[in-house]
């Protein structure tokens, strides 16, 4: 039993997956001797050799496409895209092949693969290194989209993703990689890929969020609690498929729904959660649904990054607004 940071938990899960299943294969840029630019794969090439931990040329489309081909023939590739801002060239292979192969061959071929990528802002990274493209992936039929929010959840969800028979886009909130440690038991226990996590109970307000923003959301919940507002915080964790039942049940109890995410607002995944509430829990609503999100602007360079990123203050302000409805 050990206290691990998220990056350590991810590394631990990758190591275990490689040990328990010889068909697991790591590939990506700098995943070998360098151990990945965030060290997610540190030590793996030493333990498992360069046949199973493969450094790739700078070729994101082929990384995804090679994973599709390998997955269809019995391997379980876990491919890393170095930053989510460079994942876009891989989308074609994900939409047109990874997500479709099972359906278009009536199950004859399938794609048990994981595409991992650090995502999100908040670490003062260079241009194009702070993007949050989860909504684009969540719209793609035939794939799963998973975003962990703590070391233990990263461990259990990544194991589940690797063992899943279908393609999973696994986005890692890099702001949390080393933000805190928690006890992670390396027992090989996977977490379910379609269940949200309840991070906090409360009867006044539901906040649905995922990834790094769980931090600001929990802070906001504390602040609101000091004002007498009890907030239920749901970490969605799996965006596709997502746990609609958990969202609906909570909103039915609280009557107020706030959604917080870092990505741009328009057509962000928050829209899907809002739609789910509008379709299924509208009669329980005391207040309008509200999204706190990144703005519909280009993600700014580090100097103004903090302006863009939803802060606990913005979440609190929106929560207060909703509490004015009774």
């Amino acid at each position: 039993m050990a206290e691990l940071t998220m990056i350590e938990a991810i590394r631990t899960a990758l190591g275990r997956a490689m040990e328990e299943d010889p068909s697991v294969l790591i590939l990506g840029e700098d995943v070998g001797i360098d151990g990945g630019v965030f060290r997610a794969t540190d030590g793996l090439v030493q333990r498992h050799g360069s046949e199973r931990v493969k450094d790739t040329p700078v070729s994101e489309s082929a990384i995804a496409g090679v994973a599709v081909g390998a997955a269809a023939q019995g391997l379980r590739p876990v491919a890393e895209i170095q930053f989510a801002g460079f994942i876009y060239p891989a989308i074609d292979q994900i939409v047109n092949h990874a997500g479709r192969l099972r359906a278009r061959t009536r199950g004859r071929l399938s794609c048990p693969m994981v595409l991992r990528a650090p995502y999100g802002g908040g670490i003062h990274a260079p241009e194009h290194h702070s993007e949050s493209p989860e909504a684009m992936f969540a719209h793609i039929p035939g794939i799963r989209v998973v975003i962990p929010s703590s070391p233990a959840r990263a461990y259990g969800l990544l194991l589940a993703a690797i063992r899943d028979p279908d393609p999973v886009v696994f986005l890692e909130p890099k702001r949390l990689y080393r933000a805190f440690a928690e006890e992670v038991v390396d027992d090989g226990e996977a977490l379910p890929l379609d269940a949200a996590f309840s991070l906090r109970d409360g009867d006044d307000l539901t906040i649905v969020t995922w990834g790094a923003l769980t931090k600001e959301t929990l802070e906001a919940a504390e602040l609101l609690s000091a004002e007498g507002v009890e907030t239920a915080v749901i970490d969605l964790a799996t965006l596709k498929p997502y746990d609609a039942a958990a969202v609906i049940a909570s909103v039915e109890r609280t009557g107020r729904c706030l959604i917080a995410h870092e990505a741009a607002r328009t057509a962000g995944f928050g829209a899907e959660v809002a739609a789910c509430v509008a379709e299924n829990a509208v009669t329980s609503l005391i207040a309008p649904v509200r999204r706190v999100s990144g703005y519909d602007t280009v993600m700014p360079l580090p100097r103004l990054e903090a302006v863009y990123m939803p802060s606990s203050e913005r979440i609190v302000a929106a929560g207060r607004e909703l509490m004015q409805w009774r």
Partner: protein
Amino acid sequence: MADPPLEVIANFEVRRRQYLGPEGETVAELPEFAQDREAVVALYRGMIETRVFDEKAIALQRTGRLGTYASSLGQEAVSIGLAAAMRAEDVLLPSFREHGAQLWRGVAMEEVLLFWGGDERGSDFAGPRRDFPVCIPVGDQYPHAAGVALALQREGAGVAVAVGGDGSTSKGDFYEALNIVGVWNLPTVFVINNNQWAISMPRSEQTAAETIAQKAIAVGLPCEQVDGCDALAVRAAVAAAVERARRGGGGALIECVTYRLCDHTTADDASRYREDAEVSAAWANEPIKRMRAFLAAAHDWTKKEETALREAARARVEAAATAYLGTPPMDAVDIFQHLRCAPASDTLRDMTDHEAANG
């Protein structure tokens, strides 16, 4: 850039393979398998079946019983030559124009028709279970082939063979995959059916490279150009590359020079963009005539055998068409099958939606 004389640090050449001339005459020392009558007849039969199948498919399309279809008229030697060079344990990753290769590999004619008839069951091959289905997005099959080769390499046998057109060589995925195959020494053979056209785009406007073969130089892979209307040459070149890959020698690129005697697909009208004269002239090179002449000259192929072979091909194709047309329709809810990562509840809701609306 020829200003001061600079030191030459690397040299490359592209070679070309051809055994049979347009009239079936032998223009180079033949490969061994060309002495084997059965082997040559098999190639011929494969090409005839492909052409007869093509004709039937177009007839079905014209009468509203098949969707848009891409004929391989004039390019049968590529499909058949490359498939004949493969072993069962190899994996084929076809483009949308290599029905002949699929048929040779054991995909049923009904399955090919089902796919082009808009039915997913056509990609659930009963025969070559590991072969990839047709790849419609141009060039996307090449990275898959590298990934397949990675798996085959681990298993210790098997070669991935990907085939695409001249146009597909302009896609980034073609190059990225080629490069990875080169640097990882993967058993992947890329076969290009250079049929001179990519819909309306002539080969000369697709790339300024003199040959498609030379694109392999960019990634350090060996390459070869072959006369793609000479099934013996295609088979020999692909076999050499496949066996080399099987022995651990890595990948290769084979350019097969052909001509698309047909429209791009049944949805295309090639007369909008190319001269009839060019097409007529290209008929002189077509692969079936040439192989028949060779069979007659070298293997005493008789008229009777010819008639029997054609009749058998026609019968096979007709039987397949009948089976295709008689295939019972899929159930509507089939669209929700094989989608394991939609939540059970959503799928149910979707089905309910569907039933509510449809009866």
